[in-house]
């Protein structure tokens, strides 16, 4: 236990080591107090949160038809179950480490206070509570009985995600007997997450191929990759989105050009691929060339040497930069609002164009900022956790 005098000494060393430090500390504390009280006063007494509370559906799914929204609820239920399953199996042994307890507490707090703060209708509140409960119960069950399951079955579990992605696409867009919901009617957080996940999933393999191409000994492949990467990295994303919206129609025979939403998704994918390629290349450069040579001289064909020897090691180095690019990609989806799509920011702008909510910019932007911050920070934390897991030195005893 720290004695009070010890922590006082530490405080003094940290904050008042020299007179200058003392002045800086006092000035900063004064500044923080002023900003904090002004912000609290605004948040509690001046801000009008009705603009958020009245438009939660619009922020969540845009103009997705109300009678078809059960499909999105179903998808959320499936996602919660899959998350719980993967989470529980990753931990195993029925244990609840401290981080897991914290995450569970945050989830419960979100379900209770989030739906209370947003003044959701009771049926919708109940659904969120149910979904949260399902996630935690599945996580508990998966952790409890993971040892009992046969190993081959466990190996199939990661396959849940690609299957779920396809099921999700069908649920969202319709088809197979479900009513079609054209992409023009997707919006809000739904559109943002859809575009981001689509681009993240596809830009990664594309980026790896480009990185390998750039390191290839074949000149045509190398220069092709270099040209592509440098061209994309030289242009602002908005000009490429502009290109996608205005020129793609001219490049393809009539009627073949995809919908505006999908065009944007492809542009995001091709854009992010160039940056992911550079991140992966940094990992490839860090790998001693002897690794590839040794693998080749053992008789492995090129593709096997790359897949089994080079890439796993390179990706360990490239992981932080790659996830950094994914985070940037998630943030870049806000640019869709500039080309007229109703992503989270685009929906927010339509809300604020409504005379009833005119001038409520601060409230809306603050909520969006908190939402984006949490998503990006969570991705960053996850990347750091994965990094320590992948680090052979740290996991050697496990």
């Amino acid at each position, binding site marked *: 236990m720290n004695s009070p005098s010890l922590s006082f000494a530490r405080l003094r060393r940290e904050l008042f080591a020299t007179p200058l430090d003392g002045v800086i500390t006092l000035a*900063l504390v004064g500044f923080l107090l002023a900003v904090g009280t002004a912000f609290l006063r605004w948040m509690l007494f001046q801000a009008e949160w009705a603009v958020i509370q009245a438009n939660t559906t619009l922020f969540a799914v845009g103009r997705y038809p109300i009678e078809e929204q059960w499909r999105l609820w179903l998808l959320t239920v499936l996602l919660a179950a899959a998350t719980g399953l993967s989470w529980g199996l990753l931990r195993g042994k029925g244990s609840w480490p401290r981080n897991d307890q914290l995450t569970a507490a945050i989830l419960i707090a979100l379900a209770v206070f989030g739906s209370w703060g947003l003044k959701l209708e009771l049926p919708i509140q109940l659904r969120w509570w149910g979904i949260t409960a399902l996630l935690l119960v599945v996580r508990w069950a998966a952790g409890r009985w993971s040892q009992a399951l046969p190993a081959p079955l466990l190996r199939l579990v990661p396959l849940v995600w690609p299957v779920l992605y396809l099921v999700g696409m069908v649920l969202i867009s319709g088809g197979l007997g479900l009513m079609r919901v054209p992409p023009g009617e997707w919006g809000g957080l739904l559109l943002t997450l859809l575009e981001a996940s689509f681009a993240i999933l596809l830009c990664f393999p594309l980026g790896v191929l480009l990185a390998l191409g750039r390191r290839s000994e074949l000149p045509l492949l190398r220069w092709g990759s270099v040209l592509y990467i440098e061209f994309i990295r030289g242009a602002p994303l908005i000009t490429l989105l502009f290109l996608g919206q205005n020129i793609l129609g001219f490049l393809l025979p009539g009627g073949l050009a995809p919908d505006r939403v999908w065009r944007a998704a492809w542009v995001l994918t091709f854009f992010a691929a160039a940056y992911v390629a550079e991140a992966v290349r940094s990992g490839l450069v860090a790998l001693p060339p002897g690794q590839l040579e040794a693998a080749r001289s053992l008789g492995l064909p090129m593709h096997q040497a790359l897949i089994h020897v080079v890439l796993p090691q390179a990706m360990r180095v490239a992981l932080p930069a790659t996830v950094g690019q994914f985070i940037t990609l998630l943030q870049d989806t806000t640019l869709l609002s500039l080309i007229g799509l109703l992503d989270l920011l685009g929906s927010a702008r339509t809300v604020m164009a409504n005379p009833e909510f005119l001038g409520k910019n601060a409230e809306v932007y603050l909520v969006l900022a908190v939402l984006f911050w949490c998503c990006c920070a969570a991705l960053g934390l996850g990347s750091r956790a994965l990094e320590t897991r992948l680090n052979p030195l740290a996991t050697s005893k496990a």
Partner: protein
Amino acid sequence: MATPAVTPWWRNRRLIPWLVQGVAGLLVLVVVAFLVSNLVRNLTNAGLLLSLSWLRNPAGFDVSETLLPYNAELPYWRALLAGLVNTLRVVLAGLIGATVLGTLIGVAAFSSNGLLRRLARVYVELIRNIPLLLQLVFWYFVVFLDLPGGEQAIQLPGVVLAKSGLYLGKPELINDVWQGQMRLTVEFGALLTGLVVYTAAFIAEVVRGGVASVPPGQWEASRSLGLTPLQTLQRIVLPQALRVIVPGLNSQYISLAKNSSLAVACGYTDLYSVAETTLNQTGRAVEVVLILLGSYLVIDLLISALMNGVNSWVQIKER
């Protein structure tokens, strides 16, 4: 002629890669030819075959706050040029501002004051995880458009920040309206603030990484020779850290230049904004996109050339 010892051609280690490349190259060529033929056919059908003569037609729209003389009767190329100059202006100001702020925050991470250190960390984590576009609309709609005007304007020595803009020099209040020789619009102010605040977080990380790359023995040696902390930073640490910092700055500067294209979100008429209006009026999508891509490429190359110059200067000086 062929003996069993000769490798058959399909296992030839030299031939096959070239064959694969040739086939791949041919495929790419076919796809490109297909796209271009579609483009030409579709453009011909739309009566928009590539030409640059339309650039000489009068633009008919206004570009606000131009440095070059401009009015709506001037041709399109003058409008685009005015937009380009506006872009260059905000990029230049942004580079300076972001470098100063970013360096301060990056160095603050090494302060002996624990509170300052943590605040620098909080700043970086806060800013990096919020999309730039969101920050820009926040600065414009929430902060700058909500500024008080007239008497209540924020008045500092030499600077007045009012709803109608940022005035430098000695502005005067005439009939409740500020008048001054040098006025910057709130649109420019919001864009510049957003770009500086955002880019500074990244530059701070670059600076922090650079300073951290200097071995701690350098600090200790310099301090034990009797140099003050500031002198140590200025004379010993920064010259060594710059070697690591300058290449990192290069990519942040290019990001800033590209990010300035988000100006349209806060109503500033930069190159992209002018180009968008031009496209809406003329339908000349291909030419406009080519002009846009070319201009940003040139700006990127200029920054890179400049930073390469700085880099070699830093490196030589170090020896």
